[in-house]
């Protein structure tokens, strides 16, 4: 017995409807968010529950196997605890002194003047075309990305991860640093000379690298240099680590024109990200 195949008319109608949907969602704004909002209310909690269940199960087995090791470690740690308690008392004094100094000199640590929103990664890229990361933070948490509005995203070491691409009610999509549509104004750390552009590149992405291009003539740059954001692009604050130069590529006349950069952020083990929501212009 063979079941009836779909009629040509149905296929044509659905194809036209999907093309229309694509055009509507490609436009900046409304439809994409509405579809995502509606579906996300059902799917995101299920997804979170599944991930928690997986973590719970794997955590249980890990706990059993690690139990013996932990017993040995407890003894060692108790010895260390006494030592650390003494150090803590000393450090408390140091922290107090640092805070006094910070107030006195008006020092600003990184992101002191920004609202930072922590978030869990729901899923990473799924392949070509489906190459954005979804995080559990959306409009309810104050993210309103879309169109020209975007927010920088960093990891727990304050290294650049990417930027928020679009926001829905409870979740958002993040365009990672390695994505070919991503670009950021950058400079070599410690140098306040000319800036250049760092962007994703399809060929380099396969090696986990991004591309530095538009490098001005005479810019002192070498392999091993740390590249940081320049703060000139408007979205990203200055001084956020992007990565390390791993190779330089020169033109025929010997001038350095591009470089390959290994991101400081470890995308493979990335589980949590931090979105920098707002900045005080006066800083």
């Amino acid at each position: 017995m063979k079941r009836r195949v779909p009629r040509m008319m149905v296929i044509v109608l659905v194809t036209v409807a999907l093309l229309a949907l694509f055009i509507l969602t490609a436009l900046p704004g409304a439809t994409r968010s509405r579809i995502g909002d509606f579906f996300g209310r059902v799917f995101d909690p299920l997804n979170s529950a599944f991930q928690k269940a997986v973590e719970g199960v794997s955590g249980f087995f890990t706990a059993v196997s690690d139990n013996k090791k932990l017993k040995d470690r407890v003894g060692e740690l108790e010895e260390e605890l006494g030592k650390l308690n003494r150090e803590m008392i000393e450090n408390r004094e140091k922290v107090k002194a640092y805070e006094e100094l910070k107030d006195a000199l008006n020092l600003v640590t990184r992101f002191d003047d920004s609202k930072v929103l922590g978030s869990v990664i729901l899923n990473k890229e799924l392949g070509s075309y489906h190459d954005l990361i979804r995080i559990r933070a959306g409009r309810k948490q104050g993210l309103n990305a879309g169109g020209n509005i975007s927010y920088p995203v960093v990891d727990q070491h304050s290294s650049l991860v990417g930027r928020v691409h679009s926001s829905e009610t409870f979740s958002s999509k993040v365009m990672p640093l390695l994505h070919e549509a991503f670009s950021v104004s950058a400079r070599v750390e410690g140098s306040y000379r000319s800036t250049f552009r760092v962007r994703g590149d399809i060929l380099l992405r396969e090696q986990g690298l991004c591309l530095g291009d538009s490098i001005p003539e005479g810019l002192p740059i070498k392999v091993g240099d740390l590249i940081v954001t320049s703060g000139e692009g408007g979205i990203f604050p200055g001084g956020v680590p992007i990565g390390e130069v791993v190779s330089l590529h020169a033109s025929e006349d010997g001038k350095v024109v591009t470089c390959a950069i290994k991101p400081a952020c470890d995308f493979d083990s990335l589980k949590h990200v931090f979105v920098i929501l707002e900045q005080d212009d006066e800083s």
Partner: protein
Amino acid sequence: MNLDATVRRRVAVYLPGLFLSAFLQISVYSSSAFLSPDFLFLFPLMAGLWSGGYDGFATGLAAGFLRDYLAGRGYGMGMLTGMFIGLLAGWLAYDDWRQYALRGGILVVVGTLLYEMTLSFFVWLFPMEELLTPLSSIWRVALARCPAKLLSNIIGALVLTGYLSLAFYRRKSKRENAGKVEDIRGGESLA
């Protein structure tokens, strides 16, 4: 293969199957240490091949939507690709294990290549950036990924076949087991 399961049963199999595929895909793609079958590509393919008819078409749309929601640049193109993958599988559905294995094997290989190339083509056709990457470079990268992807997808297809055969399991009657159907019209047997 099950070409005569009821609609309710098919929905009861496909709906949790699709969600499970999505969750599994999210989990395996988060860890580069494992082979990562593309379950959201394989599910409509195996469903279409298993049941024929509108099943591949419908699950393709649903799986495409899940992909678009999870990591897509917009909605529509993932659904469209999933729908055609499901249709292709549905057209090849046949109620026989040997044919299922043969057609399924070929379809996973050809489908994986087609799917990767089509989505890569969309990357080139609808760029998000001002700088255009040549289609040849995009396809070269997609082709380089294909061997690992093919291996993963073959394993994934086996897993999904297991799921579908369990979910659509039907105990055979004594008559079917005997391999013959009695003539109930009375009189002499026609055999």
